[in-house]
């Protein structure tokens, strides 16, 4: 019979092991600050050392998971490339779920936030109540305030779930419009877009 001997968190290895078990049991990303507080570790460098130990460990060929930073926290996810195998194994089809109207609406909210529904509809050229509702239900956007104009319409912003869903740590990680243009430039027809940008400043 094994004794339920208490685990120590003294050495770097033990700390790495503890972090693995914490991340293993929690379904949401865990804030690094929380772990540091728990370790009474004040030096970020020490903490980063433990994390890089973990990261290295997951590089081993017999490991199926990796350490990822998402939504401002640490999270374990499966290795890239496992996707199709897992789909086959579980006989399920894990696919993306957002429709183009929802994604368009989300683009507007993410770049123009806080923004009203009327403005979203205007920019999309079509009524956007449906996609907005869908995104609210999925918790990808939220009401973040009211615009101080007659009728006090709701203002929408992105949520933490938005960051998680798209694997971002912070909204600032989204590329700027300029960067975006470059990203899509090659595939696109002679830069429609760059000129507009230059002229509009």
């Amino acid at each position, binding site marked *: 019979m094994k004794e339920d001997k208490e685990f120590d968190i003294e050495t770097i290895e033990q700390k790495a092991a503890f972090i693995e078990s914490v991340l*293993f049991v*929690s*379904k949401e990303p865990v804030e690094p600050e929380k772990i540091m507080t728990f370790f009474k570790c004040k030096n970020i460098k020490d903490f980063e050392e433990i994390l890089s130990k973990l990261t290295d460990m997951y590089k081993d060929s017999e490991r199926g998971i990796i350490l*990822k930073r998402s939504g401002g926290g640490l*999270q*374990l*996810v*499966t290795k*890239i*490339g*496992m*996707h199709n195998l*897992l789909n086959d194994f*579980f006989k*399920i089809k*894990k*696919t*993306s779920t*957002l429709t*183009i*109207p929802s*994604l*368009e609406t*989300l*683009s*507007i909210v*993410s*770049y123009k936030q806080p923004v009203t529904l009327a403005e979203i509809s*205007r*920019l*999309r*050229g*079509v*009524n956007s109540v449906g996609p907005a509702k869908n995104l*609210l*239900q999925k*918790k990808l956007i*939220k*009401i973040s305030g009211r615009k101080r104009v007659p009728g006090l319409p709701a203002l929408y912003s992105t*949520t933490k779930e938005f960051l998680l*869903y*798209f*694997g*971002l740590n912070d909204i600032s990680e*989204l*590329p700027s*419009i300029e960067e*975006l*243009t470059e*990203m*899509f430039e090659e595939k696109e*027809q*002679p830069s*429609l*877009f760059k*000129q*507009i940008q230059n*002229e*509009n400043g």
Partner: protein
Amino acid sequence: MYSEIYEIQTEFFEGPLDLLLHLVNKKRMNILDIKVSEITSEYLDYLMNKRGINPSRESDFLMTASTLIYIKSRSLLPAPEIYNEDSLEHKLINTLAEYDKIQKITKLLKQMENDEVLLWKREEVSENFETREFDIKEISSFQLAEVFLNLIKKKDKEEFVNINPRNYSIQKKQEEILEILETKGYLNFSEYIEMLDSAEEFLVAFFSLLDMVKRGVIIALQKRLFDTISVWKNGKYKIAQ
């Protein structure tokens, strides 16, 4: 993977801006150089043949069509409207340029979504995960609002059916309560009021209870705030009549 879905969208236009952008791209024109009059006929052509037009958005398409026709007709007049910041044409072109940006962001989000789908999270797969409890952190204020909306909708329906007004008397209510106490010996007041039809009946029942307690006909006890009120007949009470 994303391009596949994206292609579909350019063939079936969600809205008028979608179609306009498609026409501009086809002509390999710079958005800011568009002569709206040049794409008007093509736009109308699409509308006539209903090619790729989302039927539920037809009115949106028609609205834009009328704007296009207006702009074109102005350009045909001997003294065309001066192209300035306030002109309809300028506004339309600006909207289109904005829409073009949104399309780029949308493409990016689609790519990011597809990348994320490839990474599986902990306990993502389960055969039975139905639960009636929510983690409070997982409830958004929007869900809270949804719950409320469903409640009042349900209630609206119920109150629609309930249309026979009745008059309740304290006398009758007291007799009713005493009868229950006679047969059961005990009354759980919270359970009792749940069966009542209206707030009015509830008030009458409550006053009846208070009156009977005051006169010593019954004994009522409430252990603490929010607990149910337990009611018994007062054995010492002798009916005067």
